[in-house]
């Protein structure tokens, strides 16, 4: 009978192979943002359909999110790619967003047409509903969640459980892990993580941006944008509406 115990014991030993999970609090993530420009324009100005024929459908831009604990810096990666002559497409050519969720502070730098602004704010609140769907993004199993912010706007996010910081691109945060995919139907845009680098994280670059610029409040910024758009606009565009949606994207997205 001793032989049997040995066999049983051996089997148990083989069986007790546990899963070693890697959890991390520091990472540098590269996102690729894919926008459907035609859709974007149509959302804002439905009458533009015939003007869109010569326009490319998609535009791709890239961003880098550097994370250390609950502090992040989100920066656009300059690209050479010249997509279109349309005056809307170059709007978010430069973007820096510093967030410190420990103290609840965000500092953003945005270029609006030809001028750069810096403004301080607090992270907005998002109501998340966790879903059942799972998708693999950049080698991580990510779980779906639907977020609602500013009362009515929806986004879809996929977050990785293995990445502990509750952060994501464009200032989205608050999920139990780091967001690796973000989709905004309203913006006709999808941010997808293409690379998650755990080794080379430039932590010392996570600092509030300091540029020569005007530190504006929320209301001031809104007015400023509206005016800018009105100056640049042509008759075919509803500049007020575009400015409004752009403000929303700057303020939160």
């Amino acid at each position: 009978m001793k032989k049997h115990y040995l066999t049983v014991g051996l089997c148990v030993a083989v069986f007790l192979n546990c899963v070693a999970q890697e959890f991390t609090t520091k990472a540098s993530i590269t996102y690729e943002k894919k926008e459907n420009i035609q859709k974007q324009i149509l959302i804002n100005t439905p009458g533009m359909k015939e003007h869109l024929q010569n326009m490319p459908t998609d535009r791709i831009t890239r961003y880098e999110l550097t994370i250390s604990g609950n502090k992040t810096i989100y920066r656009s990666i300059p690209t050479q790619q010249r997509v279109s002559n349309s005056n809307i497409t170059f709007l978010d050519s430069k973007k820096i967003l510093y967030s410190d969720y420990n103290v609840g502070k965000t500092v953003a730098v945005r270029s609006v047409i030809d001028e750069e602004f810096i403004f301080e704010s607090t992270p907005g609140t998002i109501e998340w509903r966790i879903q059942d769907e799972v998708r693999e993004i950049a080698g991580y199993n990510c779980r779906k969640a639907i977020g609602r912010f500013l009362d009515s706007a929806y986004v879809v996010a996929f977050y990785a459980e293995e990445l502990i910081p509750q952060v994501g691109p464009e200032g989205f945060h608050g999920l139990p892990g780091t967001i690796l995919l973000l989709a905004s139907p309203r913006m006709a845009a999808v941010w997808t993580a293409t690379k998650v680098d755990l080794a080379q994280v430039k932590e010392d670059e996570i600092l509030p941006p300091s540029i020569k610029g005007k530190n504006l409040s929320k209301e001031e910024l809104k007015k400023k944008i509206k005016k800018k758009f009105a100056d640049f606009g042509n008759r075919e565009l509803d500049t007020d509406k575009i400015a409004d949606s752009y403000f929303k994207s700057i303020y939160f997205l």
Partner: protein
Amino acid sequence: MCLFHTFIFQTNPLYQPILQQVKTIVLFCILSLVTTTIFAQKNNIKGLVLDSTGKKPLSYAIIALIKKSDSTLLLSTRSLLSGQFAIDKVKPGNYSVLITYPQMADFLLDIAVQDTSQLDLGKIVMNSRFQVLQEVIVRSAKAIRMHGDTLKYRADSFAVSAGANVEELLRRLPGIEVNFDGSIRAQGKNVKRVLVDGDEFFNDDPTLATRYLKAIAVEEIQVYDQKSEKAKLTGIDDGEENKTINIKLKENYKRGLFGKLLTGGNADGSYNHEAMLNIFRNREKASAFITHSNTNGLGLSYNDRSKYLSDESEFVQDESGNLIGNMHLDGNYGVSGLPNITTSGLQYINKWKDNKHQLSLNHRYNQLGSSGWSSYNSLQILPDGSERKTGSYNTNTHHEQINKGSGSYSFQIDSFSNIRAYTYIETERSLGKSSSSQESKDGNDNFLSKSLQNRFNEGNSEKMHAALFWKRSFRKIGRLVSANLISTYDQYRNSQLSETDNQYFNNSLPPTLDSLNQLQKNNQNTRVLAGNINYSEPISKSILLNIEYGWRSTNSERNRDAMGRGSSGKYDSRIDSLSNDYLVSVHSHNPGISLQYRESKLTMNAVMKVNLLNLRQEDRLTANTSSSRNFTNLFPSFLTRYSLSRMRNLSFNYNGRASTPSIDQLQPLKDNSNPFYVRNGNPNLRPSFNHNFNLSFNKLNLKGNSFNVSMNWYQIRNAITSQQSIDQFNKTTQQFVNRDLPGNFSIWINQTINIKNLGAKNASGYISFSMGYGNSGSLYILNNNDITSRQNRWSFSPMFSYNITGKLNWQYQPSFTYSTSRSALTKTQNFNHQHTSSLKIFLPWKLELQTDVVMYFQPANRDFGNSRNVIKWNASLNKKFFKHQQGEMALSVFDILNQNTGYSRSISGLGFSESAENFIPRYGILSFIWNLSKNF
């Protein structure tokens, strides 16, 4: 219970975790008592997350608090390195706590938080049941999840090649193994039933569903243990479980049709044609199939047998009041030779008015024709040391036709009661001719007897069964009343013409001649009326009482007219000594009581059933002599099952079972159909009693790994054992007697390990090991000598599987068996090993190459001087056509090496035997397959 645990701990290192767990619980209780007294101010939720072994803490598990009101996330936190977590200052309200961890099933637990709540969720073992507050739901976002006791696989998460069938999908699922013959194992256990959307697909044959249904139509594969029919009726868990797979179809495939047409043949006259059509419209389903083939080889394999010959199972009571599944499996698969088989089936299932009404209609038709030969050689050693050699040669042709129809209608009267009616009708006609010659010799090759026999058979039978089932539950959970009534009428008629010439040799004397020429007409009618009433009442939350009463009466008329050849040359002179006319009746009453104790982890079950039986046999030919016997039998049983965690179970069963001697054993009907085999009755037989103990442990996880151990010991007291005596002419006289049989022990271990990402991308595989050891004793009684023999049998059969999606599937299954048999007369040992392997390669141009090989090796040993090695190798090349690969052409070659011999041999404690049958040698076949599917 404590005693029980200690016992197990000492005997088996497997169960060490239980004690550890108990220790941890105690420690944790003390710890939590201390901590709660310190922080008794604001509200606070805390707990400890452990992995599926229940021992290792899980750090960084996500604990999310979700508002019940709008299901939005309030906050989330991570468990510490120690596995502990704490959340404080939570706004009062109702929340769901969602705990997730990569690769593990989710936990969802509802809690109510007040201003001063101090909630301790205690130990949370991921993947395991956790019941601290009322409601627990386990949910998962993964491709595999555990829902209650059901393991669910989302089909779309597992890639299969275009046009693949369900079998191919099952091969991809971790934890599921598909064997070469299409039989399925899940978590190391054999799958008994395959359902489609909860309904049987034609019958209990799993391969019909898995081979004809397309993987693309499947939404989800569910694997669970289905309780026995008895457990469903009474609510009392009797420990009997059948692994069941349910194939859930996608909604859009429930409106549509799909089917298959196959035609194949070769120049030598082999053919195989199949057609199958399924039409679904919401809850309405109609299916039809027809097959026509002569390539089914020697007899029929297990799969073919169930495919061609079985039908929807019907539940009936046996004589001791136990509900048994009656498969309507006809005995014809034993026919040797090369059968040509035509079979067809029609099925219609409909459910309407919120599934309150359910109707199911089935028809099956089978036609089987076969002709063949077989030969048999045996050597038997008698207790006095002398030998008997027997050789026989047999040819036969056989033809039969079977029609079966069944219908079932069930009606949900209200939310509490349900009624079901079932009918079954079967007619069978058979015609056969066989001739055989037999010789027997003694050890010095002197003839003892010679016999030549020709037989013509014609038979027909009719069966009519009807049953009514009623079940009612009540507001009080657990209270249940059920009743059933079954009535059957079976009629069997058979005429047999035998011409026999026997020669007996006795040393130097001239041989004695004995010839027989007679026509036998057998006629048998059996009526059964049986009923059963069951009442279950919950005495407390965890105790359930069940009382049942059943009765059964069987009346059977059996008569035989033996007609000799009269002077006119016709069979018209009745031979009274060989004719008989009996009236046999069996009446039984079966009261029973069972008690079940069940709390979250422990189930205990004690049952006592009594069987009061009266057997009566009346000989209507010989002046109404009748005999009657009364028996009282007890059926005690005891079952314990302990869930160490959701995926780890330990169970212990005891079953005591009395078996009453049958009428045939007490007083057989006179029968002289085989002059070399005479049966005598034994009116003094007592019932036998079987003690059976079983201890088993099983464990599985969501990755598809599983581990099972099962130990079994049984012994039969007063076993009804066959006693034979062989005379000098090798004529056997047989009778049943009571004897205590030696005990039997067996152990079986199975372990399956899944391996993901083996080298290439999309590659996966699994390894499974099964080991078995059995020690059994058997008793032969020969010429008044009791010969006990002991058999030891070791077997080891691993299985390896490797898949690269869209490229290749490979499977290899060797099996090694070593057995010894030891008795006062003989001592034998036998070793054999078998290797089966199959390989499927997906080539360019939609070509698929499939090959399988079965190698059987039996080295020479003392009993068989020559080794026996057979390699059967089959291969086929498939080419798929059209956009959706609906078309397929296949060139298959069977037995490429032409090694099929139709030969088999066996050893028993009293000698050995070998037999040979005719077989199909190497052949090739070219087939065209057209798969159609359409949605509407």
